């Protein structure tokens, strides 16, 4: 079927099977490889993208559901000033190790800060509950997010 949607601020029209996964469309058809597949069943959050500003697992979104939606991946988001703040905060706080979960966590962070620019510890934990990380033990990611909220005051 024909689907129209907005990807990283650009209108796209694609011809796809309506049950194909958004994850595959992004990775295979658009070569947006920041979107990772860690489990394929919505548990790990490595494939998180924003759909109309909300974090979703792209492995669980069938193509039919993106009609008319705005999809934002890290490739689109990384050009923004907010991204720069998240990047420098993650660098400073040591929030990154192997990096495979990182793109999903950056997108979850953006989704959190859009809704809640000054989150407390519990709100940060809650926002990341869908993103698994096996390297860091999470605390240094929390630190990175807190730092971003502080340094980016007024941006969100």
């Amino acid at each position, binding site marked *: 079927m024909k689907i129209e949607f907005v990807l990283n601020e650009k209108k796209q029209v694609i011809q796809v099977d309506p049950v194909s996964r958004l994850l595959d469309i992004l*990775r295979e058809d658009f070569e947006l*490889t*920041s*979107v*990772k*597949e*860690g*489990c*394929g*069943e919505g*548990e*790990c959050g*490595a494939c998180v993208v924003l759909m109309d500003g909300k974090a979703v697992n792209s492995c669980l979104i069938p193509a039919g559901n993106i009609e008319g939606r705005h999809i934002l*991946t*890290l*490739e689109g988001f*990384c050009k923004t000033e907010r*991204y720069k703040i*998240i*990047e420098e905060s*993650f*660098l*400073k*706080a*040591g929030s*990154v*190790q*192997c*990096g*495979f*979960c*990182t*793109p999903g966590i*950056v997108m979850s962070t953006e989704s959190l800060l859009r809704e809640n620019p000054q989150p407390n510890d519990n709100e*940060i*934990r*809650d926002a*990341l*509950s869908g*993103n*698994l*990380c*096996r*390297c*860091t*033990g*999470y*605390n*240094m*990611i*929390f630190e990175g997010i807190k730092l971003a909220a502080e340094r980016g005051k007024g941006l969100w």
Partner: protein
Amino acid sequence: MKDSISKPIPRVDAPAKISGEAKYIGDIRFKNQLFAKTVRSSRAKAGIVSIVKPELPEGYFIVDKDDIPGINRMRTVVSDQPIFAEEEVNYIGQPILLVVGPEREMIYDIISKIKIKYRDETPIFNLDEAEEKGAVFTEYSYSKGKPEAAFQDGLKIIEDEYHTGLQEHVYLEPQGMAAEYRDNTMFIYGSMQCPFYAEGALKDVLGWGSDRIRVIQSITGGAFGGKEEFPSLTACQVAVASLKTGHPVMMIYDRDEDIICTTKRHPSIVCYKAGLDRKNQVIALAIDIKFDAGAYSGISPVVLQRGMFSATGVYNFPHLSVRGRNFMTNNVPSGAYRGFGAPQTIFSMEMLMHNLAIKLGIDPLDYKIRHLLERGEPTCTGGKIWDEVKLPEIIEKVTAMSDYRRKIQSNGKYKGVGVALFLHGCGFTGNGEQLIKGKIILKKNGGTVILKVSSVEMGQGAETCLRKIVAHTLLLPMEKVTCETIDTGLIPDSGPTVASRTTMIVGGLLRQASLELKDRWNESDNIEVSRVYRHPDYLRWDNDTFHGDAYPTYSWGANVAEVEIDPITCEIDVKKVSAVYDVGTPIDETTLTGQMQGGIVQGIGWATVEVMNPSKGKLKQHNLTDYKIPTSMDIPEIACEFIENPYEFGPFGAKCAGELPFVGAAPAIAAAVSNALSVPIKNIPITPEYLMELDKHED
């Protein structure tokens, strides 16, 4: 002014990972590439009677044992696992053949039409059955003092037994490997820790020399030992497939496949016979260690050795006998996993000491302190503790940070605090470093320096730390010091990225070479300095009797865990972990803290939520829905500090670090649970079901 080496700098690999530009193997495409999918055994132990293959559409291939030009075995410590099964299969998930082609849908269709007929045989599913049947891969023993005589000497004898479970690595990036045969050379690209292990395996399987093999590491999304020996298997499989098809071949596992067939942490049973004198001091100890190696021996002998050489933890028992056995079962092969056998034996040792103390009415920490190793004393293998042991300082610090002494007195029911003391042997076990003789090269090129090493970045921060050691020595900015691509055609073999050896051993060689380069800096614009590892002269090791210095030195630590138990559900809530480590000198405090935090949380998972049960050889947990690892909601506050204790032969005094934090978390939590419920904990994972059972027995 010169900054301290420990002062944190931003990780060099982080920007590309944060922006999503970092390309992992699954993000790479080769021109005309084919995909490969593995057909695996559905039986735990069986003969293969026949394989009926469908007619293949054009451009599709089946690759199996008959396509291997060289030896059909994966080279590792014991090269017993076939690359593709021959006449028999020995575990569920064992690779039999690959289906290779351009479209994944068609590959799945072909796989559904392959019919394999088996002749089932009687499998072995656990350690008890294996022991009964005498299915032993490896048996070792060693002793110290006169254990037999000591046990005859009127000591009070206490016997006990401890169990630990299977654990899956759950690196976030599943296994992935690609092969491209071109220009008469096999190029291998993939997610791995040990490119030269893969090269060795490929030499056997292809029957070629290293001049026709290039192994190139792609950005690796976590490993923890899971990408130590296992990638040798997939590298050989895709290589044979590329040779047969003439196309580049890409094989990426999905999570289910990864969990079903990759190596795991060895399940263990450790049995003790402790002999106590009149003052309740443990004078004699007999330890019997049993590991479930799974269906193939592989790397397990060395895992068992580390488990055995770490078996007395931080204590000195005058009379000791240690027996270790790897058992053969028809479970998925066990392999390398952070800590490499030591977490199992140290968990058991710590809980033995804890439970003995409780039984004797002595404070567990005081009882442990009475047995501590000191500098100059013999190690369990009759070597020597050569370097300063700062355990008293570590204990003082961790008890102060956690207010342990007050909490152990005042904690009520369902609320507990526990302490664990531990060490980790730095670098390869036994004579490993002398055998491998790691080599490094430093090359000055004008105003820049290139490091040539085979130690890989896999998330732990190796690239940052190794470059930092060189940059700091040469007083160059980080951007002037770079690493050569991890490509076996371009770098020397500095040994595998394992055993917490990268910073201490490889970093140590880089430090020596940098000092030489610094002296010779003005000689010319092109200078090459190399170094080959030499064991410190004073160390002795006999690999036949297991006598001497099993490790060049040790890193040390103490953890205090605080838990609350839900009185209804028996779920454990880990509230806080306080941790103090002596890893010599921290090379980068932030990177190191990341290792410690992450290691502790993996240990919390192993101790509490990570349940993996095979049922008749088939894992009941095979995805991230039923195999749970800690999430952001599960983790405690973690306070982590370091004590400086520079090691003469480590770069800037650094010792080993990456595995150490994993070792301490589980026994600290188990001790805290024991304190909260007044029950002895002897098994991990500590599931609610286990606690409810214990509760029944207590009543």
